[in-house]
């Protein structure tokens, strides 16, 4: 698999094969949003159950490629039991990582940075920016989740 190591990391393949928080929640009380990737036909449904400011539960349903599935699974794992504020912050940092900056594209070394803003496991998805078409896969679940917790946008 020469050249694809940055994309198909161990942890991504693991989330793809064993997706966390898969399934549905009953609506209401949960909120559901559907997302489409018009480029490849992928669909994702995100269910979110909040308790006040807290994300009590999140479930992911739908079909997609390894990147979109793994990214959504990793997202679910990262935001459950977090506050809405914390989740929004995470979305922002994730999207930042996924945006095609010169710096992102150029850095041969896609090193995990260790400051307080670290995205933890999510850093594994950083390799996706090298494949611009796949960015939409990686962000599909996130954008859909964002629509739920930042409504009216």
């Amino acid at each position, binding site marked *: *698999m*020469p*050249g*694809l190591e940055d*994309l*198909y990391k161990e942890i991504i*393949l693991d989330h793809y094969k064993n997706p966390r928080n898969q399934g549905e929640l009953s609506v209401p009380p949960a909120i559901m949003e559907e997302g489409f990737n018009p*480029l*490849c*036909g*992928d*669909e994702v449904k995100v269910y979110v159950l909040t308790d006040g400011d807290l994300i009590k539960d999140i479930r992911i349903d739908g*079909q*997609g*490629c*390894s*990147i979109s*599935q793994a990214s959504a699974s990793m997202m679910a794992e990262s935001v459950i039991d977090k506050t809405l504020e914390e989740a929004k912050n995470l979305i922002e940092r994730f999207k930042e990582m996924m945006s095609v900056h010169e710096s992102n594209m150029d850095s041969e070394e896609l090193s995990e940075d260790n400051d307080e803003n670290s995205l933890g496991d999510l850093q594994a998805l950083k390799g996706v920016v090298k*494949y611009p078409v*796949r960015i939409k*896969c990686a962000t599909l679940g996130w954008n859909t989740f964002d629509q739920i917790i930042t409504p009216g946008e």
Partner: protein
Amino acid sequence: MTGSIFESEKIKEDFPLLEREVNGKPIVYLDSAATSQKPIEVIDRMTDYYKQINANVHRGAYHIAELATSEMEETRTKVSRFINASSEKEIVFTKNATEAINLVAYTWARTQLNEGDVILLSSLEHHSNIVPWQQLSSERNIEIRWIPITQDGQLDLSSMDELLADVKLLCVSAVSNALGTINPVKQLTDAAHQVGAICLVDACQSVPHFKTDVAELGADFLAFSGHKMCGPTGVGVLWGRLDLLEKMPPFLGGGEMILNVTSDGFTTNEVPWKFEAGTPPIAEIIGLGVAVSYLEKIGMEAIREHEQNLTSYALDLLNDRFGDDLIIHGPGAAVERSGVISFSYRDIHPHDISQVLDQYGVCVRAGHHCCKPLMALLGVNATARASLYIYNDESDIKVLADAINEVGKIFS
């Protein structure tokens, strides 16, 4: 076998892009159903156009404007002969096939179809031959009805009689871009004409690969794109029966399409210029003309024979090598299909398949191929699609198969 009638090695040399490497591997381009590569003579002619005769057409009385105008208009004649139209006036240049279909939807259909009328579509249609009709349908309360498909992705004509009730327009692709199915166009247009319907044929996937005769197809309108037939991007063709075109109102308004304009109103120019508002894609039309000559030089019958042989080879190879792991959608036999091979491999997502194939220089498409309703019927979200053209040969298929094998290893 295929080598004997067809010098594909020599043809490959006509296409500069096929000399490049991708990820250190020679490119194996298998996405011609999306867009074809361009032979050097098409590229060179457009370059020469810009270096020698670039000028706006139709209105200039100076030398290079005359050259540009006559070369553009000669292409119209060439295209009309290529599809056996009865007059070059029946050839309208558009920006792509999508605009050609929309032109019919905005002009012919919006003046002819009303509430209660039915538009009959095949379930194999591309979004470009679905959405314009859905737009009209929701404006006018016109019913859209679908010709169902069989298990192997062929049109199911068993209940055509019921399907045809109140149909005023039949829209069908000659060949499916998603499955490669060759549709029985003549049988469909005959049946539709019997109930007085008009027939629009989406020929995007047939004109580049098969000899096309609008009369034999029984079409009333026919649409196709230049970029899938060795021509440049930015140009498409609408062919229409002259009497229909003449009665249709204009579509886009502007320069070129008028005979006279006063502050009170305008009168339209003659067909086909009536439908060509604004500066046309001049270089692109001229490039398309060269593409038509290129295809004619090879011969459309020879092209079909080559592609059918190669498809047959590919179907056999993939089936033998991957067995039940690999499902090829659509008709079973090469004779029933074009060189489009749409497949699923285990439960690996097509996007991942295509990403790994790219690592081996192999270009295939992954997705719904702009046929979401068909994908829903097939019960898949997406497929991987390898599509062949004149410059492909058996070695390309072998590289494809080897690369698919590598995909399996990663996602085991």
